[in-house]
C-alpha cells in the first residue's frame, strides 16, 4: 500500500504488476479509482454551464452532444496546464472527473472563476470504478445489455447490480473499457459482482501506470504540469476547431495567446515516446542528451519504466522540437552511463477502442 493524495492505495494485488498488466490487455481489469474527484457543474441549462466552462478550458464544451464525453485541460495564464480532466454533457449539467491531487485546487479555482452563475458540487458520496480490457464489454453487458450500444466516449445512466451508475466508455489503459461512477454505499457490492466473473481481476496502481504509459497517456504532475503547454505535450488534438484562431469561439481561455500561437507556429519542445535500446529502464528524471559526450542535456524523461506488453523499457519525455522525429537516436544518462534511446511515435501499444 502507498499513500496517494490522502488515500491508501495498493501498488499491486496478489497477481503482481506484470500479470495484472497482461490480464488487463487480454481480459478485463477492475480498478478502484475512487480517489479521483467527481464534480457537477450546473447552470440554468447545459449551454449556460458550457459557456461558463469555456472561459477556463480551451475545449469546445458547447458543441459537445448530450451523452458524450471529452478530454479537457485547465490552462493557466502562461499557457501551461493546471490539471487535466474528463467532462461529459449529461443533458442538463456537466459531469467532470479531475485528478485526486488537484481536486481541492480545481474546486477552489472553479468557484473563483465561475460562481455565482454556476453551481459547483464536489461529489463525495460516489465511488469510481474502471473496468478495462477486451472482455470489459461482455462482462458489463451481463449486468445491462445497453452497455453493448455504447461507443467510445459515450456516457449513460444505467442500473448495475441494483445501483444507479453513471457510465462512460473510456479509460486510462489504451484498451476498450468503462468508467463507472457508483454511489459509495453500493460500490463494494458492484465491485464484488464484477470480480465474481472469471475474466475479471483487481488491478493496482503499478499496472495502472504501466498500462497508461504504453498507451502514451499523460500523468498529471509528471508528463504535463503548469510549465508545459498543450502543444508541447502533443495534446493539440484536444483543442477543437471552434476554440482555435478563426473558429466560432476562438481564444477566451487562460493562456490563449501562447496556445493559439503554438497551434499554428509549433512549440519549442515536444513530448515524445522514448524506447531505450538496451534493457535498462529509464525512469522519471533521467536526463536526455543529443550525444554521448555533450555536457548540456536537451531534455528529460517524465515517465518511464518497463512495458510488460512491449516486453522492454518504455518512457516518455520532452526534447526540442527539431530532434523530435521518430527514429532519431538520443542518449539517456542512467547511473552515469549514456545509453542510446530511440525517439518513437506514441502510443507504444495500439489503442483498442470501440469507436
Amino acid at each position: 500500500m502507498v499513500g496517494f493524495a490522502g488515500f491508501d492505495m495498493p501498488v499491486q494485488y496478489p497477481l503482481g504488476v506484470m500479470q495484472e498488466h497482461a490480464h488487463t490487455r487480454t481480459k478485463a481489469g477492475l480498478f478502484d479509482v475512487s480517489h479521483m474527484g467527481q464534480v457537477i457543474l450546473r447552470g440554468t441549462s447545459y449551454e449556460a454551464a458550457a459557456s461558463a466552462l469555456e472561459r477556463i478550458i480551451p475545449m469546445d464544451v458547447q458543441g459537445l452532444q448530450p451523452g458524450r464525453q471529452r478530454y479537457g485541460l485547465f490552462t493557466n495564464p502562461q499557457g501551461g496546464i493546471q490539471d487535466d480532466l474528463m467532462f461529459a454533457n449529461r443533458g442538463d449539467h456537466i459531469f467532470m472527473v479531475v485528478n485526486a491531487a488537484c481536486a481541492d485546487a480545481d474546486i477552489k479555482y472553479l468557484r473563483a472563476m465561475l460562481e455565482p452563475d454556476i453551481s459547483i458540487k464536489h461529489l463525495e458520496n460516489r465511488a469510481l470504478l474502471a473496468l478495462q480490457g477486451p472482455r470489459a464489454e461482455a462482462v458489463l453487458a451481463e449486468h445491462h445489455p445497453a452497455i453493448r450500444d455504447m461507443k467510445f466516449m459515450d456516457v449513460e445512466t444505467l442500473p448495475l447490480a441494483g445501483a444507479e451508475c453513471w457510465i462512460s466508455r473510456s479509460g486510462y489503459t489504451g484498451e476498450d473499457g468503462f468508467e463507472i461512477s457508483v454511489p459509495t454505499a453500493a460500490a463494494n457490492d458492484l465491485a464484488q459482482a464484477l470480480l465474481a466473473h472469471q475474466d475479471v481481476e483487481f488491478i493496482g496502481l503499478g499496472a495502472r501506470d504501466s498500462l497508461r504509459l504504453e498507451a502514451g497517456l499523460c500523468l498529471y504532475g509528471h508528463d504535463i504540469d503548469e510549465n508545459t503547454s498543450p502543444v508541447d505535450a502533443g495534446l493539440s488534438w484536444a483543442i477543437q476547431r471552434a476554440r482555435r484562431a478563426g473558429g466560432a469561439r476562438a481564444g477566451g481561455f487562460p493562456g490563449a495567446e501562447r496556445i493559439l500561437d503554438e497551434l499554428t507556429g509549433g512549440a519549442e519542445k515536444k513530448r515524445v515516446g522514448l524506447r531505450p535500446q538496451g534493457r535498462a529502464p529509464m525512469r522519471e528524471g533521467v536526463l536526455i542528451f543529443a550525444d554521448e559526450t555533450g555536457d548540456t542535456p536537451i531534455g528529460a524523461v517524465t515517465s518511464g519504466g518497463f512495458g510488460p506488453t512491449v516486453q522492454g523499457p518504455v518512457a516518455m519525455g520532452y526534447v526540442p522540437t527539431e530532434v523530435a522525429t521518430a527514429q532519431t537516436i538520443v542518449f539517456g544518462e542512467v547511473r552515469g552511463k549514456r545509453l542510446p534511446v530511440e525517439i518513437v511515435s506514441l502510443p507504444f501499444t495500439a489503442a483498442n477502442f470501440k469507436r
Partner: protein
Amino acid sequence: MKFTEEHEWLRIEDDLVVVGITEHASTQLGDIVFVELPEEGDTVSKDDEVVVIESVKAASDILSPLDGEITEINPALEDEPSKVNEDPMGAGWFFKIRPSDLSQMDDYMDEAAYNKLIS
C-alpha cells in the same frame, strides 16, 4: 549458507562465495525486469554498490557483502532477469566473489537467525 540484513545470501563454493538475494527479497521487489551486474575482474569493497536491480516498481542497489574480486557473473540474468523471481536461491544468483578476508562471513546470520529477522 549465510544471510545479510540486506537480504542477500552467501554460499561458499570452494574458495569463492556465491551471492544472490533471498526469496523474501525477490517477493518484496516484485517482478524483476533488469539486473545490472559488475564486471568480472572488478575489485570491490564491502558495502560498495555492485548490483542494480530494477523491478516493475523501482530500482534497488545491492551492496557487496565482502571485500574481494568478482570472478564470475551470472550471464543468464542479462536476457532473463525474471530468473531472480523464479529461482532466487539457485539459477537467479548474481555473482561469485573471491573474498580477501573470509572472516567477514562471520558477521552474517545463519538461516535460523535470518528466518527470525523476516518473520
